[in-house]
Structures are given as C-alpha cells and as structure tokens.
C-alpha cells in the first residue's frame, strides 16, 4: 500500500512539471508550453514583461497548442509568465540580443538531466552494494 501511495504521489509531481520549447519566427518568439505527456498548456493566461518593468508588454491566453507568441522590440531580458487557475504555471526568462532570443536557464536547469542521471547511477550502485553484502555475507 505504501508503495502505491509513493507511486501515486510521484505521478502527481510528474504531472505538474510544465515544460517549454522556444523557437524564432522572423523577429518573433514562439514559446510552446506543454506537460510531459505532450498535452499542450492551452487557453491559459500569460503575460510578457520587459526588463525592469511591471506593466506587461503583452498579455492574453495561450492558443490551442499551448503557444505564446510575442515580438520583442528592444534588447534585454524578457520574462514570460504563464499560469492557470489551478496553480500550474512557469516563468521563462529570455535574453534578446536584437536578432535572437536565448533561453536564460540556470546552471541547474541546463544540466538537470546530468545531475539526476548521476544521482540515479549512484543510487543503483548503492543498492547493488547492499545485495553484494548479502551475497558475500
């Protein structure tokens, strides 16, 4: 029963992981938001903010495919915030250099997979050590 509860809680945490991808169309950014099962974050509220400003440059709702499109008019850091009424959401920070946008992710976000993978490998070998002790003991 305990195992089922852990799996259930894990599945819930996985379901809340809102992901995104970025591409440029001309001078505009197309940000797509989706859940890990590829379900788009459709018709949800978003706002786009220029660097250092509190009044949104643009606001609205994502389209049926979970996309937010905006065309930055100046260089600097741009923040895109998406959120739904039930508490899902994400904040993406993008650096615009006049011609291209770069996803400004933290070092952890950039190498998240590597950190998790290394932790998993050490976990697997940690478990193996327990078995080896039992075999040899």
């Amino acid at each position, binding site marked *: 029963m305990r195992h089922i509860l852990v799996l259930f809680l894990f599945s819930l945490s996985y379901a809340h992981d809102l992901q995104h991808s970025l591409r440029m169309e001309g001078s505009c950014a197309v940000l797509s938001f989706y859940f890990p099962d590829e379900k788009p974050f459709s018709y949800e509220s978003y706002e786009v903010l220029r660097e250092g400003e509190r009044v949104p440059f643009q606001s609205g709702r994502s389209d049926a495919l979970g996309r937010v499109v905006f065309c930055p008019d100046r260089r600097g850091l741009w923040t895109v915030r998406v959120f739904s009424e039930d508490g899902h959401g994400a904040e993406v920070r993008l650096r615009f250099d006049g011609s291209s946008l770069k996803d400004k992710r933290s070092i952890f976000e950039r190498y998240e*997979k590597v950190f998790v*993978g*290394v932790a998993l490998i050490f976990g697997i070998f940690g478990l193996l050590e327990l078995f080896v002790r039992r075999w040899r003991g």
Partner: protein
Amino acid sequence: MHIPDGFIAPQVYLPAYVINLGLFFYALKVFRRWLRERTISYLASLSAFAFVLTSIALPLPGGTSVHGLGVGPMAILFGPWVAFACLSVVFFLQAFFFGLGGVSSFPINALSIAFLGSFSAYGVYRLFGRGRVALFLSGFLSTLLSALFIALILGLHSYLFREHGRPVYFPLGFEVVIPALLLPHLFVGVGEGLLNLLMVGFLRRRLSLEG
C-alpha cells in the same frame, strides 16, 4: 554519437535488441561472479563519469558537436564485460528517461559504444603492450571504431530501406556519414586517449593501495 529515434529500421533494431539483451545477461553473469564490494564505488564513479561525458555536447568548428565516452578506463581496469554491463545501464537511463538517444536506437548505441567500445579499448590496450602508448591508442582507436560502426549502420540504411527510390530511415550514404562521424571523432579520440593516460594510472594506484 547517440542515434535518435526514426533513423534505425525495425528490421535492424529488433534483432539488435535481442543480441544486446543476450550479451547484457551474459555480462551480468560475469559481473556478478567478478564483483567485489570495494570496487563498487569505483564502478559507480566511472559510470557516473561516463554518463556526464556522454551527456554534454562540446561544440566543434563547422557547426557540429561531439561528446566524450569514458569507456576506456572502465574496460581496462575492470574488463570489457563489466564495462559493457555498466555502460549499458548508462545508455538505458539516457534513452528511456532522459531523451538522449532514441529508445528504438538504444541497442545500436549500446552495441557500438558499450560493447564494441569496451572490447576494442581492452583489446587494443593488450595488443600494444599495456604501456602508456597502449593506453593512449586504446582510447583513440576504440572511439574511432565505435564511430565507424555507427556510421556503417546509419549509412547502410540509405541503401537497404527505400520506398519509391527514396530512403525511408537514415537518408545519407556512406560517402557522407563516414567522414561526418569519423573526422570530429578524431578529436574525441585524442581526448579519450589522454583521459585513459590520466585516469587509468591514477585509479590503478588507488586500487593497489586498497589491496
């Protein structure tokens, strides 16, 4: 060097899965027979190191990128079957949980890097006399052999699997894919050779200190 999904035909990856599974279960037998408690931390560290090396792409001039392998030290110090077993787990995690390399192409990636890479690294090291030159050549040649194997498998698809005269899976022939994979991996091979020189000596001293 990880091949993504969609490039390998089912006629190739299904038999490759069977071969890979058979080899993996045999490797597990060897691994279990050979395993000692004091070496687990070394194997864990080397597997984690291989995971990091194969996950981080390094950009090269010309718009391409490569990644290291980290196969040599494990194969030379602990034997090719143990290295194959550990690296198969690494590639399994990468393909099934992290999207690095395709699920359908997993057996090809595992056979080329984990199996061929480990056995060639170990074989070259023994063939060239187990000295410093052998260590360097082991890293260099095993990297090139793995890259060549992947290039041959990919290139073969453009000739074998065609519909209406057009390739269905990987579209480029040997004349493109072999130089495209081998040339960047000359750099990786040099890096792997140097890595072998640095790591094998150090780890061997550590292992001998522990008795």
